[in-house]
């Protein structure tokens, strides 16, 4: 049955409308989970708040399990799902830049938009910085293009690159996630024994 748009069950013209609705829901959930606070987000680097790690890791394993079972039941055709192509060099460089930006600014792009939307000044400053970054990157793109497109692996999945099958990879991911949650909660208890609300 699914995915609904590639199967033409929903007209592709609805793409942007659906994207807008999902975006609004995503923003609402981010904001109501407290993800518009840079202190909460940066907490993962300083060890006093691991909610970011927990939320995103849980989302990843829930989605992986959901897609696996839905594909098995024939409700979603896994082959029709869009997979972002991997450019290894660009992904590593981008990951490092984003990590540094995350520690410095206390936001990632999505959460900074959330913070900016509710009028937080640090959110606005982060957004301004992001636009400057986009501008600089675009201007220097001809110079960076070769590095950007090098090591292109195409639309590859992690388990394929590791030579595993999907179910083994999902199981490993769940075990790693649960271990990470446990270790994170231990660290959190040690660094900040009393729960602090921001």
């Amino acid at each position, binding site marked *: *049955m699914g995915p609904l748009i590639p199967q*033409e069950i929903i007209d592709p013209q609805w793409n942007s409308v659906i994207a807008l609705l999902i975006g609004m829901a995503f923003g609402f959930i981010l904001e109501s989970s407290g993800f518009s606070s840079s202190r909460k987000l940066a907490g993962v680097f300083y060890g006093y708040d691991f909610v970011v790690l927990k939320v995103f890791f849980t989302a990843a*394993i829930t989605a992986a*399990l959901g897609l696996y079972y839905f594909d*098995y039941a024939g409700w979603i055709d896994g082959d029709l799902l869009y997979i972002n192509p991997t450019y290894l060099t660009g992904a590593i460089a981008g990951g490092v830049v984003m990590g540094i930006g995350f520690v410095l600014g206390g936001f990632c792009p999505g959460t900074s938009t959330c913070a900016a939307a509710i009028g937080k000044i640090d959110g606005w400053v982060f957004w301004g910085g992001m636009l400057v970054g986009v501008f600089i990157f675009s201007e220097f793109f001809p110079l960076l293009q070769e590095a950007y497109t090098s090591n292109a692996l195409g639309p590859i999945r992690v388990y394929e690159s590791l030579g595993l099958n999907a*179910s083994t990879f999902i199981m490993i*991911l*769940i075990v790693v996630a*649960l271990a990470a949650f446990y270790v994170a909660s231990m660290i959190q208890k040690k660094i900040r024994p009393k729960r602090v609300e921001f």
Partner: protein
Amino acid sequence: MNTRYIILAILLLALGAGTMILPDKAEKEELPAERLLLDITSDTRFKEPIFVAQKIIEKDPVYTLIDVRTSDQYNEFHLPGTINIPLKEFNNPEYQGYLDREVKNNIFISNGSLKADQAWFLCRRKGYENNYVMQGGLNQWVENILRPTPPPATASKAAFEEYNRCKAASLYFGGGSMDISTEVRKEELPVKRKKKERKVAGGC
């Protein structure tokens, strides 16, 4: 530790283990012989060339037209909007996505009905739904659409309507001529002549 977390962790582990225990996703089962026999004897798989012509003209996205002839034959001539999957490639897994449709339909086209029918048979045996065959193939297409012959004068009205549709399609596909209007059977209405109304003129 909070018992809720423990329960959730066990649930996640159980679901993860479930993915490993499940047998590999089974290929579609082959159709039972009785069902296949029933489908072969039924002629619902055939679509008339005029039906195919209409779908091409309307650019109907629900129907995909698949030419099952060799790629040389396809390059020489093919109907507009068709794609080429040669019959010998039908077991190639690369094309399974095209042949095993759930929502859309395929119509197989070959020179006659035979090759397209073989293609349909291969697909049906694998349990693929929504595949059809263009009746009579391209030979019938030329006969019906490109060079339609008028039905005898005593034919039914429906036959004439069908002929006119073929003529119109013929114009679209570049065959035939522009003499549609001459072929339209005129309804033989009784001619009513109006009597000239003579008004009483003054004078005499």
